[in-house]
């Protein structure tokens, strides 16, 4: 929430000091509203205009715009910081893949199916492409509507409808308005027709302009026509220009509370070079795009982009933890090693990855350390002999192996004796760094 001062609120009050709000003066009341101790509605005499002006001023600096409906609704924008370490980034960048309307029906169906399949499981999370952007090429308006129809029928993903022709958009909206697609894009030439379409269909609208000034002017014009769910589409030429524009837009919204650009931003990054297209997408995920339209639909290209998004939108204040349970790498048997580690996601996945590298099928017994890594968990009394023994016993893993040996992280070698005493197993001290696991399992492990 943008913060208003008492003085700013006072300006909108009746200034009668009537006391009906239970405060002696309007000024005293305004101070309490500014401190968020009481609501503005406690003044029975405040005018509708004042309420509107104040609620506008108290709105978040960047609007949150919803694309799609129901379970599949996606939130764009609503961001509150420039740098993720200051708080977190809130709404992961929507990744859309474009589909042009000049494809044959077969090719179109194939491409839609290919895009639908761009879903992956990484570190226990489902990550995927969120939307299809249907692009109107030079062809007839009916062609665009037919393409939209096929996409809407065959894909559950959110829709972005991209055309310069308001008739084509109108026809497409008759097919899919209830899916709440993003209309793309109003420009200074067409904004009246596009705003009317967006208003009638109650859909979000992108606004496109070459400069930030033109963009700000256009959003005001569109807003005056009654459309408020806007997405900014600055035209960019090159990475440096894009970074400059998106950085300034984010700063204007958050640092200057400049309403005319207080909206999420989208960019289209189609390039004939898939590596360069990925560079654009990866960088705009980090630096301030809420929606990115790509051309590439290859799995090897989309996965790194989705992974950048997964990483950057991780909440830095929440310890990143995996479920504390028994994990299997490969198909471990009675002679396979049992390794202990913590449930800090990074620790676990590093250990898992190195165990995979060793090609020795193994059990990994993960102890709940509240998402702390080995040394921190040890220092915090979360990785103790008791906790390890309790977890290993709960998982019943020692009953599944013949050797009764447990490998503990080298950094907590000091726990060896106590675990042996409590658990009755032989405790082996593993390497201090996960990187040492493959050599350890291959050379030193003897089941």
């Amino acid at each position: 929430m943008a913060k208003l001062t008492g003085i700013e609120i006072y300006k909108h009050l009746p200034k009668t000091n009537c006391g009906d709000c239970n405060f002696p003066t309007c000024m005293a009341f305004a101070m309490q509203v500014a401190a968020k101790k009481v609501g503005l509605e406690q003044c029975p005499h405040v005018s509708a205009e004042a309420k509107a002006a104040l609620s506008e001023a108290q709105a978040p600096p960047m609007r949150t715009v919803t694309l799609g409906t129901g379970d599949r609704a996606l939130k764009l924008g609503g961001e509150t910081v420039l740098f993720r370490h200051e708080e977190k980034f809130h709404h992961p960048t929507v990744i859309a893949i474009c589909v042009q309307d000049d494809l044959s029906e077969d090719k179109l169906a194939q491409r839609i199916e290919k895009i639908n399949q761009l879903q992956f499981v990484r570190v226990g999370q489902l990550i995927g492409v969120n939307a299809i952007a249907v692009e109107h090429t030079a062809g007839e308006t009916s062609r665009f509507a037919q393409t939209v129809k096929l996409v809407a029928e065959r894909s559950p993903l959110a829709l972005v409808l991209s055309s310069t022709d308001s008739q084509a958009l109108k026809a497409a909206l008759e097919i899919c308005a209830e899916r709440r697609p993003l209309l793309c894009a109003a420009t200074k030439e067409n904004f009246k027709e596009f705003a009317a379409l967006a208003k009638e269909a109650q859909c979000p609208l992108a606004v496109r302009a070459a400069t930030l000034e033109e963009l700000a002017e256009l959003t005001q014009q569109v807003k005056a026509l009654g459309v408020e769910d806007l997405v900014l589409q600055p035209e960019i030429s090159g990475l440096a220009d894009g970074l400059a524009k998106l950085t300034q837009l984010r700063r204007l919204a958050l640092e200057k509370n400049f309403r005319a650009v207080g909206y999420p931003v989208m960019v289209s990054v189609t390039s004939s070079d898939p590596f360069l297209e990925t560079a654009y997408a990866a960088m705009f995920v980090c630096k301030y795009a809420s929606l990115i339209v790509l051309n590439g639909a290859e799995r090897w290209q989309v996965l790194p982009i989705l992974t950048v998004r997964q990483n950057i939108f991780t909440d830095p204040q929440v310890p990143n933890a995996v479920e504390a349970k028994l994990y299997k790498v490969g198909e471990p048997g009675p002679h396979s090693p049992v390794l202990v580690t913590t449930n800090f996601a990074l620790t676990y996945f590093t250990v898992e990855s190195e165990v995979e590298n060793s090609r020795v099928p193994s059990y990994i017994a993960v102890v709940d350390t509240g998402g702390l890594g080995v040394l921190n968990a040890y220092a915090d009394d979360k990785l103790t002999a008791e906790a390890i023994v309790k977890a290993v016993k709960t998982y019943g893993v020692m009953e599944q192996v013949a050797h009764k040996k447990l490998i503990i992280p080298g950094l907590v070698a000091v726990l060896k004796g106590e675990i042996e005493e409590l658990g009755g197993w032989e405790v082996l001290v593993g390497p201090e760094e996960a990187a040492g696991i493959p050599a350890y399992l291959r050379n030193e492990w003897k089941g």
Partner: protein
Amino acid sequence: MPVAIPDVKKSWANAINTVTLGATKDEGGTRTKKVTVGGATSLPFHHFEGAMPYPPAIAMEVWDVAPQDWPEVLAEHFKDVWHDPGLWAKKCVEQYGADLICLRLAGCDPVRQNRGPQEAAQAVKRVLESVGVPLIVWGTGNNDKDNEIFPAVAEAASGENCLLGTITEDNYKTLIALCTAYKHKVIAESPCDVNIAKQVNILATDMGFKPEDIVMYPTSAALGYGLEYVYSVMERARLAALRGDKMLSQPMICDIGIEVWGVKEAKASEQELPEWGPQRERGPLWEATTAYVYLLTGADILVLRHPRAVASVREAIKQLMGDGLK
């Protein structure tokens, strides 16, 4: 009615140090090319408000011994030359346009061939006589071993103004003394922690080492393996530097190839991971994407392996420095 836009440009209190690597004949070395990094007066590539006089530089990684565990999609580019670090370095410079060579003394690692100081020095000399670009020499990470080999390495490269690393909070005295004596720059390593990064710089400068002769290595993580931690540590360090912290004003190096080519997204074949697409594309793109992201947080030197990642990161840098697309 044109809308007036509030000015959001920032001017910062401090600039990032510039560091020049390599010394020509006139300067007591034998390099034909020098590389300067750093000098930025704002956040990376914020040309609209600050200067970025030097683009980030790309170092390609060369080993003193032939690697055993590089996947074929990577190995195929180097196995004709990797029996000789000189030929390997030459290929990186002449064929792939590397700005710098990063010689990793992997063969000296006790868990590998455990080669000695003379062999390490020999590898350094081979690279120096084979290419004209400046040299980074990266040790084994084993403190005792590094302290054993670096005296010979620093001496063999005397006067060449190399970048040697790494020093850490627990092991810095030997290498700092050597870099002072033989006029090299140093890489200061910290475990993904801004405070420790600063502490290592303070320890080095307390020995009389110039802060301008340090490049920071805040550790690197591959995309998908903790990249966001390093991202935010680098971003915080860079912001602190611009706000005036002289002990975080050093350029930063990212050691990317070694991290990326250790994770399954780059290493696993298509037979193992059919749902992730061909490794030939996936591997180099995983490496390049990791680099793209670090460019935005202030990476000044990127150590890379795959020629395709190198070419693509070079193109991204060119565009980030202001060349248009499309």
